[in-house]
């Protein structure tokens, strides 16, 4: 049972209030039309799916309705940090 800090509400809330929204930092290709089927397939479906540290998006669905990023360990389920969309996690270079 996760507990996630919403960077907007500035509170740690129960998992029930959030929706998981998949891997973070997948940018939409700027010019989809020039993408090959392969590029597009990679964008649509292919995922890192790491065992361990994962950067992912969540939305505070039953709260402020804001999307944000989370770094979570997919084995221990510990949430390392949460940070805003468009930012990089603390400690990244």
């Amino acid at each position, binding site marked *: 049972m996760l507990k996630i800090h919403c960077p907007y509400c500035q509170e740690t809330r129960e998992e029930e209030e959030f*929706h998981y929204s998949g891997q973070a930092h997948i940018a939409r290709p700027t010019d989809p039309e020039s993408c090959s089927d392969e590029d597009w397939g*990679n964008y649509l*479906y292919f*995922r*890192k*799916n*790491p*065992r361990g540290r994962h950067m992912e998006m969540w939305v505070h669905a039953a709260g402020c309705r804001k999307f944000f990023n989370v770094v979570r360990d*997919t084995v221990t389920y510990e949430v390392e940090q949460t940070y805003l969309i468009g930012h990089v996690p603390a400690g990244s270079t």
Partner: protein
Amino acid sequence: MEKYSAYSLFKHALGHHENWQRQWRNPEPKKHYDVIIIGGGGHGLATAYYLAKNHGIHNIAVIEKGYLGGGNTGRNTTIVRSNYLWDESAHLYEHALTLWEGLSQDLNYNVMFSQRGVLNLGHTLQDMRDIERRVSANRLNGIDGEVLDVDGVRRIVPILNTSKNTRFPVLGASWQPRGGVARHDAVAWGYARGADRLGVDLLQQCTVTGFEMSGNQVRGVVTNRYGTIEADRVGCVVAGNSGVLAGYAGFELPIESHPLQALVSEPIKPVLDTVVMSNQVHGYISQSDKGDLVIGAGIDSYTGYGQRGSFTTIEHTIAAIVELFPIFSRVRMNRQWGGIVDTTPDACPIMGTSPVENLYLNCGWGTGGFKATPGSGHVFAECLASNDTPQLAKPFNLQRFYSGALIDEHGAAGVAH
């Protein structure tokens, strides 16, 4: 290999069961194998078994990081059915079901495949349309099944709450009499014993931690226990860990690994003799031959390798079971657990070649691959042996995620497990 039978039991009883042979060896690995299968779950073991049995390849190792059958094979709700919507999946799962029907005899290992029938309940008009569509498709694919109205459902499962006053009244169901359940552990052990007898080395407690590559070719696997072991071909059959293995070989997959949970009640005297599944209220239930109710939960939304999920998922599942079976309210839940399921965007598996030469994939079975175990092993063995994708496996190639030819069992059929 000694043959198992009532007679052998009797004979060994006289010897106080002191002389039973090992069901499989505990071998030292060779330096080189023709084929290495990574993953000693049902699918991996079945692959090895059929490779040896049907394709004459005996220099095979199965490498398992834990104990045989300890992955999803050992933690699933064991529902077996073949009434899938799309032709591609229906043919594959029906192929598996046909193999299930003679599996105990083929393996000389009673996998307790119990064809007690599977009901998929419909609670809304759209559910009933989907059921009609699926059953109609099954009929034309030669798969048994019928659409039941609520009276038909009541006749089969009298203890189900079929009152009109429930939150989501049961309107009907699809019914596949040939579906059922099997004893999950026995499936893994039966294949293991069968494969071992045919010369396959089963290497347990040994984790593959990388691939021995030469250019874009796999030459072997790197393990934590035995170092590098060479192989001409490698089949990767690691379910929830497929993404991790793909990572070792340098590519990504259209797979996300999620926790999927299940639970059992305390054993009670048999009251439920079929499998009941409901998507709308989200519960899957059958009663084992030991008497416990075996209940499958919905998938947890986030990715996870922890073999455990969230308590809310369990709560929702149990509420659904009580909704369907109010008489179970006072029955008690004994144990819960989780597996790591490898989900694909279209809820269909991926079988065949990978972006790397000599490395073959068999994964993406997600929440519903137990029922496919014999079929998957059978087809994948052919794939590895012939270096070509067999007809049944063709639609399940990786290429479909680029071309868009997805087989959307999930959107269209909306049935899990």
